[in-house]
């Protein structure tokens, strides 16, 4: 045998093994096999991954549903039947406050998850409570908007545009409301049961849900309110 080495190819092999997609970070170093990691022969992934991933699939289907509402809105935007137009129903100040509340609630929700990962119950509850409060402000502002519009005669029956507007914005508001109910039950569960495994799974899902709501709101305030205020 010779003692000739092939340092380049050895290095390349190592890199491929540790970073199969050449993404340059967080490769899977080949160490001992981990059961439950979801890698090929090692058996199914652990429940935390499956639960989170399954919820991610649900959220994507929720995005698809919202896309249908957005498509409806885009098609019916001009069909005002002589009634109020998009420009008439938009109150920029209220939308700005709503947007701030929801963005900050997404931020505090993230902070609560940071506290969850540090297993700090007090801060988790504090930040979850803040998230709920900001969500409540958002929902109340939206309710106020709907009531004011209804008082001016701008109800969903008035025109195709208003039907699409109320379905789209109302569907998102309903999501935030139900998210708030979920948040309250999560706080109660956490208080009583502590950081048990299934509680952690639910908190992962709740965080995903709340951040997803904010993503939809970004599309909503851009398309409905900001673009609506232009025409």
């Amino acid at each position, binding site marked *: 045998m010779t003692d000739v080495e092939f340092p380049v190819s050895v290095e390349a092999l190592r890199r491929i093994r540790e970073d199969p997609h050449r*993404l340059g970070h967080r490769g899977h170093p080949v160490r001992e096999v981990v059961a*439950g990691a979801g890698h090929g022969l090692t058996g*199914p992934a652990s429940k935390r991954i499956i639960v989170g991933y399954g919820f991610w699939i649900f959220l994507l289907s929720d995005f698809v549903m919202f896309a249908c509402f957005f498509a409806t809105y885009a098609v019916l935007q001009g069909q005002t039947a002589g009634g109020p137009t998009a420009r008439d129903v938009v109150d920029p100040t209220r939308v700005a406050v709503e947007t701030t509340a929801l963005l900050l609630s*997404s931020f505090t929700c993230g902070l609560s998850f940071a506290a969850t990962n540090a297993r700090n119950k007090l801060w988790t509850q504090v930040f979850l409570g803040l998230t709920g409060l900001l969500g409540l402000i958002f929902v109340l502002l939206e309710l106020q908007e709907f009531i004011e519009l209804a008082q001016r005669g701008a109800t969903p029956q008035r025109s195709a545009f208003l039907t699409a507007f109320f379905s789209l914005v109302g569907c998102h508001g309903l999501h935030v409301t139900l998210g708030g109910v979920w948040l309250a039950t999560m706080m109660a569960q956490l208080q009583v049961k502590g950081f048990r495994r299934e509680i952690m799974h639910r908190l992962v899902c709740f965080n995903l849900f709340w951040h997803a709501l904010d993503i939809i709101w970004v599309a909503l305030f851009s398309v409905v309110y900001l673009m609506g205020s232009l025409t």
Partner: protein
Amino acid sequence: MTDLEFDPHRYEHALDQREDHAPGDEPEESAGHWVRNYVIGLGFAGALTIASFWAAATHLIWGPAVPVAIAVLAIAQMGVHLVFFLHITTGPDNTNNILALAFGTLVVFLILAGSIWIMNHLNGNMMPMDQMMQMQQ
């Protein structure tokens, strides 16, 4: 205990570097890492939000370009949310999440672009409603 019930987290750290990760989840990191991530995300998202509200209110931008600017800023902000709040990365531990997201985005795009395109054409090609009523009589 079934295989699905087996949870390596009970024997190791909360999450392991070697595993796949669900969205919103990451391997065990210090609280500072999480907080820094969210603060950066809030900073970017806040700046983009302010920019889009400014773009809608200002008269400095050429009128027809304003909706485009708002759309671009909105898409950028969604990206910021995905990366900093939902922790979607390009790493190999996130391949499944990215693939699902790509498919979801494709469906959303087809629904939006398809509906708007088809309905606009229908609107352009259809007979005005009063003429149609006369035809039916």
